């Protein structure tokens, strides 16, 4: 007959699943989550608007127009020369406008100092001895191009540029390396932004739990490690939902708007594997930072306290990101090795490596190492929680010895 008092409990994974399922559903179907999903769209919209307005203002205020105060004939020659060159050189050439009320370099200086007109500089003198008057930066910018225009204008025969035959290669060694660095950089920045944005969610989670007093019920039924794991994985699931929604929305907006993403060079491991590693490194980075945040959240009594306590971790994460960014340009160096081994920087460093180097095995090793670090972080977080909040935990050596002695007796 079965012993009715034999061991009967959920495994740690089953228990974590119960917690994760509840948290996932509770967050997903809450109004707050809708705002959370909309959250990242605001900075994008605001940034886009600000960028658009800014560039419009820039366009309106900046000028590449040069005032021309030459004789009428030479002015015509100069305009003709510009006409002849603009097809090949395009926007590199300045706009030219005839200035009637300036006749000498002194006039030009006075004209500009009086802040009249909207000219970058004023050309006086003659085509043989041109004189460019303007602020230092503008003079430096335009002097070479004005010289080209003047020389072309003085030429006796019309300028005819030879037709250049071209042939292209997909990439060169140097360009591939620099392009892949760009891909690595983009991957790292995206990974960092997503982790920082999403890991913050776990911060207030245990504070809410303590507010509900339900933590006592959970702690009595399942190990605290399972509570921690469940919460982390629920948040990870929610994060993937967020990323999917943002990704699809972004793709839809680009599709409808007819935009094309600036093409990035294919990473060394190929796009499919790069995306897979991206997801896995996101998961690991999220779990690592999330477990730190969760431990902090569990010790705080209010959301305000959580924010104060989490500041050092946020700063640490920034430093870690800088380390990984610095290491990115030095694959195979000691710095890169350190960045790949230190658990918090490892996901960033390894994603950059996936963009630049083809070997797969280091990623498998890194993922295993990161998973191990997650286990340690979760364990430590749960122990910290038990000790600080539930006021339980390992006993002093003396007490353990006394207990052991009592058991032996």
């Amino acid at each position, binding site marked *: 007959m079965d*012993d*009715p*008092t*034999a*061991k*009967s*409990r*959920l495994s740690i994974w*089953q*228990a974590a699943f*119960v917690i994760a*399922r*509840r948290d996932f559903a*509770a967050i997903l179907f*809450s109004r707050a989550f809708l705002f959370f999903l909309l959250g990242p769209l605001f900075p994008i919209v605001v940034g886009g608007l600000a960028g658009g307005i800014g560039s419009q203002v820039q366009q309106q205020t900046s000028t590449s127009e040069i005032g021309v105060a030459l004789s009428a004939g030479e002015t015509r020659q100069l305009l003709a020369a510009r006409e002849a060159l603009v097809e090949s050189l395009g926007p590199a050439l300045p706009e030219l406008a005839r200035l009637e009320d300036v006749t000498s370099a002194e006039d030009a200086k006075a004209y500009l100092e009086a802040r009249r007109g909207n000219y970058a500089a004023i050309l006086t003198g003659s085509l043989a001895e041109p004189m460019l008057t303007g602020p230092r930066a503008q003079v430096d910018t335009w002097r070479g191009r004005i010289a080209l225009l003047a020389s072309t204008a003085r030429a006796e025969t019309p300028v005819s540029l030879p037709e250049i035959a071209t042939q292209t290669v997909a990439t060169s060694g140097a360009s591939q390396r620099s392009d892949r660095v760009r891909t690595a950089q983009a991957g790292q920045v995206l990974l960092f932004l997503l982790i920082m944005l999403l890991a913050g969610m776990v911060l207030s989670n245990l504070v809410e739990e303590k507010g*509900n*007093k*339900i*933590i*006592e*019920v*959970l*702690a*009595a*039924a*399942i*190990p605290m490690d399972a509570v921690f794991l469940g919460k982390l994985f629920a948040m990870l699931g929610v994060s993937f939902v967020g990323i999917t929604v943002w990704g699809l929305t972004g793709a839809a907006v680009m599709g409808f708007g007819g935009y094309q993403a600036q093409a990035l060079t294919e990473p060394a491991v190929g796009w499919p594997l790069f995306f897979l590693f991206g997801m896995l490194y996101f998961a690991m980075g999220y779990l690592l930072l999330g477990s730190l945040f969760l431990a902090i959240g569990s010790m705080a009594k209010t959301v305000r306290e959580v924010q104060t306590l989490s500041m050092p971790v946020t700063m640490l994460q920034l430093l870690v990101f800088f380390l990984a960014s610095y290491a990115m340009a030095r694959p195979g160096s000691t710095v890169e090795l350190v960045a790949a081994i230190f658990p918090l920087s490892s996901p960033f460093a390894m994603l950059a490596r996936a963009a630049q180097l083809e070997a797969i095995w280091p990623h498998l090793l890194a993922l295993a190492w990161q998973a191990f670090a997650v286990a340690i972080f979760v364990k430590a977080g749960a122990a910290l929680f*038990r000790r600080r909040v*539930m*006021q*339980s*935990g*390992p*006993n*002093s050596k003396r*007490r353990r010895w*006394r*207990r052991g002695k*009592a*058991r032996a007796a």
Partner: protein
Amino acid sequence: MVMDVALGEVTDGGNVVHDSRPLAIEARGLVKGFDGMLAVDGVDLAVPEGAIYGILGPNGAGKTTTIRMLLGIIDPDDGVRRIFGHDRPHDIARLIGYLPEERGLYPAMKAYEAIAFMGALRGVSLAEGKRRGRELLEEHGLGDAADKQIRQLSKGMAQTVQLLGTLVHRPKLVVFDEPFSGLDAINQGKLERLIRTLAEDGTTVIFSTHVIAHAERLCEGVAIIAGGKVPYAGSVDEARDRIPAQVRLETHADDGSWRTALPRDARREGGFWYFSLPESGIEPLLRALIEGEAGILSLSIERAGLHDAFVHIAGEAPARALDADAAADRN
């Protein structure tokens, strides 16, 4: 590991308890301190399976800390505890139901979902938990509240939902921490009936309280706890028997040789004599009174109540604290 079950004679708080039932809970020398202060100092307990057992003491006496140690929510600094013979209570989580003193549920959950969630924590599948949740709510007159969110329920209703969540997985041991706190008289009565029903079905029930009446009405065993120590743990009857029964005597004669038969502590109040029942029993005294021609008009023996036993065992200060807590509860 399942330990050998102590049969026949077990020690409980230093008292010898004769019982043939295996133990649901056994604790020896439990010690727990917080910030250098001892909250629980050497608690011994032995609760037989199927018993209703009370932990009786004023607020701050160490009841909740003891319960949290028994359930593995916190680890003791010293001592051992075994639930159904297991050192680690989490190993048999499915057999245990626990209602903490500070009630807590997720406010956005529906009542039946909250019960199902608590069941899921103890190994009941979600579908089964939801089904049982609705059933339990129906049985306890809360069928209409099944689909309401916890935040929409009254405090009493939410408390009942949590109580049902404690029982949804049909545990063999139920631990209630101050279960009567915050309940009105009608719901206290219902809870008492529920506890009796659980025990009749073979479930061990252990609860903490600072209201002696509940312990006296329900429990076969109690642990009296004060200042983190347990000066008594054993049957309610034995606790009451620690104080000699009080005799009330009314005689026709005011004086006579029979007066010498009365014990030394005899005092006269309003025409009655009051004194402790002599250790030799009532028969020798009766004989002496009759032979001395006292002319007995009435004689009654009143057994001491649990409150008297508490005062006798724990002392007056804890008893006063206990009375104050109970009075605060009523208000």
